């Protein structure tokens, strides 16, 4: 436990909560059994970083989970895998079977008296289940709708027991931390949030893909050095730095470190590290509309601000995009987004609101053009 704390590891799912701290809460709770859930419900659009781990290196994750189970005093682990990854399900199940056969999982692992069992639970298509309390509801066989917090899952989680939910990437960092030591690990990348990070770059770059780089790598370098720059001779227009729920950054704001501390200062969030790159052929009104169509579809319907807010944002954006916008629509959009911000049950609503606010903040002129001329200079 001390080693994990010393490493400074932060959750890689999006929120960036210090892992060691989260664990100590669950460990301190006297209730048993404790459960360890791996969040493999990678559904944030733009994100495809966990799939290579699941499909190409499942034993890394299994090892990470065994270590976590040992530290936490948890004897049962579940991998909550998204329904859209059937290939990964087969691979994971096969890997788990191998691990049982080799006695790396079971009642008495390697004869060391440590017990840990692991199984896969496959979801069936619901983005919201990436939120930890919704994931817990879902694994209990209910609709995936978030729970009220507190109590936090570390005290009352799955099957009402102390539960740790960690992202695939987070758990996959553990074997490495144990191998090189927390101290050495904390020297990689940014000071406040150390370690390697998987960045997945998509959109208009020459070499899209998943890149493992030190946390805090400059966003500009990720795009221009690692991903080879903008393709087809295009010019960079905007970047969504951490998956679709994070606010957009205009081309002149990308000279910043990609970590949990620097990104908020730059006006966005690290999120899942999913960098979506857009060149100057992209109409931002259309991107905003497509993003909201997603949020409206995936809103679980539990709380009013999110259910109604995403619906109205999508409706207004649809008419603006089609050139049927009215005067005052921009104000209306900002208004709805402001009302949603901070008032929804879980971060899905905040994400949706933040996306619209970011788009209007940086690309207001395109919205104005759409309303005034029925279309924008890109003629869409």
């Amino acid at each position: 436990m001390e080693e994990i704390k010393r490493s400074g590891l932060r959750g890689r799912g999006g929120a960036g909560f210090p892992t060691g701290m989260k664990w100590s809460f669950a460990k301190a709770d006297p209730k048993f059994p404790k459960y360890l859930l791996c969040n493999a419900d990678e559904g944030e659009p733009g994100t495809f970083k966990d799939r290579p781990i699941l499909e190409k290196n499942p034993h890394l994750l299994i090892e990470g989970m065994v270590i976590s189970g040992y530290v936490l005093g948890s004897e049962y682990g579940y991998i909550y895998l998204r329904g859209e990854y059937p290939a990964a399900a087969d691979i994971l199940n096969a890997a788990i079977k191998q691990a049982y056969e080799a006695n790396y999982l079971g009642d008495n692992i390697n004869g060391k008296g440590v017990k840990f069992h692991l199984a896969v639970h496959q979801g069936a298509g619901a983005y919201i289940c990436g939120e930890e309390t919704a994931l817990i509801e879902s694994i209990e066989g209910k609709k995936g709708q978030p729970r009220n917090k507190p109590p936090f899952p570390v005290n009352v989680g799955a099957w009402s027991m102390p539960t740790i939910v960690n992202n695939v990437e987070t758990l996959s960092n553990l074997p490495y931390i144990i191998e090189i030591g927390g101290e050495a690990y904390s020297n990689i990348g940014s000071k406040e949030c150390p370690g390697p990070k998987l960045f997945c770059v998509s959109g208009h770059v020459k070499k899209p893909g998943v890149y493992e780089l030190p946390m805090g790598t400059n966003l500009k370098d990720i795009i221009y050095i690692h991903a080879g720059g903008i393709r087809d001779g295009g010019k960079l227009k905007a970047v969504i730095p951490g998956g679709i729920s994070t606010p957009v950054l205009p081309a002149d704001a990308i000279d910043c470190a990609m970590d949990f501390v620097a990104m908020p200062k730059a006006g966005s969030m690290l999120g899942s590290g999913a960098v979506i790159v857009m060149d100057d052929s992209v109409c931002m009104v259309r991107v905003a509309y497509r993003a909201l169509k997603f949020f409206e579809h995936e809103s679980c319907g539990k709380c009013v601000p999110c259910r109604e807010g995403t619906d109205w944002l999508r409706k207004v954006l649809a008419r603006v995009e089609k050139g049927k916008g009215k005067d005052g629509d921009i104000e209306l959009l900002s208004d709805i987004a402001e009302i949603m911000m901070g008032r929804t049950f879980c971060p899905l609503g905040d994400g949706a609101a933040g996306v619209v606010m970011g788009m209007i903040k940086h690309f207001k002129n395109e919205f104005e053009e759409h309303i005034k001329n029925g279309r924008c200079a890109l003629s869409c």
Partner: protein
Amino acid sequence: MIDENMRQTIEGLIKKFPCRDSAVVPSLSYIQKVKGHISENDMEDLAIILQFPEARIFSAASFYSMLKLMPKARYHIQVCTNVSCSLVETETLFDHISGKLGIGEGEITPDGLFSLESVECLGSCGYAPAMMVNSEHYENLNFKKADEIIELIIKEFTGKYP
């Protein structure tokens, strides 16, 4: 109807978890895998096996987008139209496939071979545009590649090209 064989498999799924409730979604997915879709009858049977109210099963079955309560085609095509993919033109890919098969969103071809749906991110954003046919991912697509995939299925099925 859930037969004895399927019941055994479902009992096996139940054993993986600390309580029976957790097996709802895995069981429903399993039924769908075997039968293509989930009928009301199946849900009634499942309620008896899992020992809890049918309403709870129905509530889960209707919540998750991958669970289908209506018959599907033999090959279910899902085209991602989310942002990363639409940056590289999947909306037109969807229209292309839709035109080729002569069916729209959520429809089934008259011979029951294909159904089409536009979906959210499939986790292939770096290799866009992407689609899934049943449980298989297809990436880095273009019109030609999509045509080939569809034609291959048709060929396999009827022994001749369209």
